[in-house]
């Protein structure tokens, strides 16, 4: 296809720049409005918000699957538009740089077995057969799914599906990973595995944007948290410490709620987060499931990483 005029610019530009972005599914009803957001290379950003606040829409926008009704998105320094993605060289480059792990693995695993699933992206990139096979092997090793490669997706467990889904993105060697609710539908041990994987990616300098309402996962995996309100606007942007200590704000956007319960004979109230069992604000002896597993791991109680069965 040759050198196209519109190849993404030098890595000096931020990965994504959103200016006054608005998105409407149908006229009048915005699913996102007034979004200004810059994501720099290597950052790990968690987008948190209650259900229906537009997290997934934002992620799909970053992946060039939906486009703003108003405002502008630039990716790697160049405008990210429907027209730009029609250009084969730009599309190839953009798709190779940005990987999207869908919330429902069933949606993402559309091939007849795991090998084809992992090979799908590299084949679409036009790589040679040897290169495709090499990438599949490496990704399978990285995610410990070598034994699953000839299995059809419907014979995999939820955690295995997630691994295959992530591996099928990894084979494209993306610089940016977009994860939609990555910890949902994972048991505590797989959640720990996922957080370890995110830590690896941080060392490798990969950019991660994850949409979640699991505040503890956001607190552990992200170095920056942005909060979407139920009015579909961006209401907070900062480090986990800065954002997660704003109790009033988190109550207002419905990420935590007042919770009354009893310890022995004394009833008391405290803020309570909804997530995969974690409670980052609790200060009186409630430990999250993840923290529990991590403590056990430190003391050798649980195997370090789940291996594929």
């Amino acid at each position: 296809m040759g050198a196209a005029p519109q190849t993404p610019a030098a890595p000096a530009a931020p990965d994504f720049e959103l200016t006054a972005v608005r998105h409407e599914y149908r006229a009048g009803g915005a699913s996102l409005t007034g979004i200004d957001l810059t994501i720099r290379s290597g950052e790990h950003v968690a987008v948190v918000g209650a259900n229906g606040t537009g997290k997934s829409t934002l992620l799909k926008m970053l992946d060039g699957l939906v486009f703003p009704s108003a405002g502008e998105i630039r990716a790697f320094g160049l405008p990210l538009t429907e027209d730009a993605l029609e250009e084969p060289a730009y599309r190839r480059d953009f798709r190779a740089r940005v990987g999207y792990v869908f919330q429902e693995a069933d949606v993402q695993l559309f091939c007849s077995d795991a090998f084809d699933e992992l090979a799908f992206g590299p084949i679409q990139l036009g790589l040679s057969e040897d290169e495709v096979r090499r990438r599949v092997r490496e990704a399978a090793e990285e995610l410990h799914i070598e034994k699953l490669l000839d299995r059809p997706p419907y014979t995999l467990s939820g955690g295995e599906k997630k691994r295959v889904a992530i591996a099928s993105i990894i084979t494209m060697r993306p610089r940016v990973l977009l994860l939609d609710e990555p910890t949902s539908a994972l048991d505590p041990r797989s959640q720990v595995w996922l957080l370890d994987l995110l830590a690896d990616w941080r060392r490798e300098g990969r950019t991660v944007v994850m949409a979640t309402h699991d505040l503890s996962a956001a607190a552990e995996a992200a170095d920056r948290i942005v909060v979407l309100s139920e009015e579909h606007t961006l209401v907070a942007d900062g480090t986990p410490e800065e954002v997660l200590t704003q109790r009033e704000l988190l109550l207002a956007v419905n990420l935590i709620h007042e919770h009354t319960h009893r310890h022995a004979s004394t009833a008391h109230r405290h803020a309570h987060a909804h997530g995969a069992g974690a409670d980052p604000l609790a200060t009186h002896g409630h430990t999250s499931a993840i923290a529990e597993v991590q403590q056990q791991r430190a003391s050798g109680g649980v195997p370090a990483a789940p291996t594929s069965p």
Partner: protein
Amino acid sequence: MHIPDGYLGPQTYAVLDLLMVPIWVIAARKVKRTLRARQVPLLALGSAFSFVLMMFNVPVIGGSTGHAVGAVLIAIILGPWAAVIAVSIALVIQAGLFGDGGITALGANCFNMAVVAPFVGYYLHRLLAGDAPSGRRRIVAAGAAAYVGLVAAAIVAGVELGLQPYLNHTASGQALYAPYGLGVAVPAMALEHILFFGWIEAAVTMGVVAALARSEPALLEMKPAARPLRWLWAALAVLILLTPIGALAPGTAWGEWSVPQIKEAIGYVPADFARLGGVWKAAMPGYLTPGVNNTLLGYLVAAIVGTVLVVGIALAIGALLARPPGGRAAVAGEPRAPRSRRADLAAAARPARRGGRSLARKTADAVAGAMADVLRNEDVAARRGLLQRLDPRVRLLTLMLFAVTATLVHSIWVLLALIAVTLALAVASRVAVASFERKVWLSAGLFALVIALPSALAWFTPGPAALRLGPLTFTEPGLLGVATLVTRVVAAAGFALLVVWTMRWPDLLRALTALRMPDVVVATLAMTQKQILALLTVVEQIHLARESRTLARVSAGADRDWVTERMAFVARKSMKTAEDVHDAMLSRGFTGAMPSLVRPRMGGADWVWTLAGMALCALVLFADRLAGP
């Protein structure tokens, strides 16, 4: 309406198989133009929806249930050409994954259900609905279109079956394939669908269209009809409406195959043409006015009686074969699917009912059974047996060659030898022989026997009497014809079932790719199978949830409303999933092609097996010529 292997002679199925090829090519081109890159997920979900639709039990009269084909409904939602592909793929999966409908008869089944029904229904719907985007007119038009489309498909199937005695018979008048002539097969198929299955189709289509009109009108949007073509649709619709009448009235369309013409053309008068009229003339002399064509009235009465009998017998067999929940999976020591425990819990919680299993339970059980089948196939296919060791292409092609051979053989003895071959292959491939034989003999063989046995009566097939039971006389050629059909059906079903049970689905897809099947077709098949399993899970959960909350008996009407609402829900979910899957594919750089890297390789054993299989088939055909029918 699924025609199994063995009912159609080679001329008929070969013509229809070949006819389908250009139709699929044209449909693929049309669909590619209208759906573009979205075609794979949309078609896959359309096919999966079509398949899943056939799993929903719909209450009819008297506590009985049936299922819809949904061809017209799919055509209304996706357009007729997309429906051709979607319903064809659903039929391929039924044949290849679940063993419903024949391999050699695939072209015939696709022609009837994926071409005739969608086109007739789609254009009739457009004609009747006019410009009405929604509302009562649109819904009624959809119902009428579904009814007529299905009946038209049934009539075409009747013609295909009814041609067999004229095309293939022995000198003594013994039928070699489907035994009934046009005069019985067409009215029987037509009336069965006019009286029974057409109404299910209409009810389901109306219900789903009504529910979609309320919740997702965008799915039903119609492009403005091309006005100059209107009159053509009108003419077409009138023709179609007249067709069933034509089948019964003298001098119109179907009357052209009258006795002298057939005799002239084939030199053989099917006995039923000549006999039936006389029988009824004798039975009801007072009711017949001289001007009425007694033969045709005879057909009409015979067809109604036949329909009632066939439907009645089919329902009775269905009731007999229906095992208690959980019993299905326990057959022949097959591994029991984990979900049946869940089904048992729900079964324990459900209130006792007159008339057996509830509607929700029936559907949930059918779905659980289908999924257990898939998992069981996966398990059998993973064993290291004879067939499993072979290259998937070789396995597929040789088993298909055997199935074709079974449809070419005329001698009962040679057919019995082929049945022995299926048994030997089943043992060598470590298939659970008891359940294999049960499936082959009970669901394929017994059905053929019930359908064909009346044709052995002297009324239908004249000849020396072989057996007298009271007033009924079975003739020698008649019984031989029935035996030929049953053994042929069992042999062909055995080979088809071996394909289904010993092929892992990914292997089958790779075999198809290696056999130069277009990528898009294979990709759509792959995705369809996956989505069917996902949708089936949803359907099972819907029905179990319903079952667990049902305390009192509900009326059939309320049940029907509920079922169609759920179907509309599955349709919406299918389309939503198609969008999501398309996004997921785009996100990974999808450009329209879906090649697979894993290509099967032929080894020494594969070549030996291929040659041995071909030699065996040649030997079988040679032996058959020696043995004579």
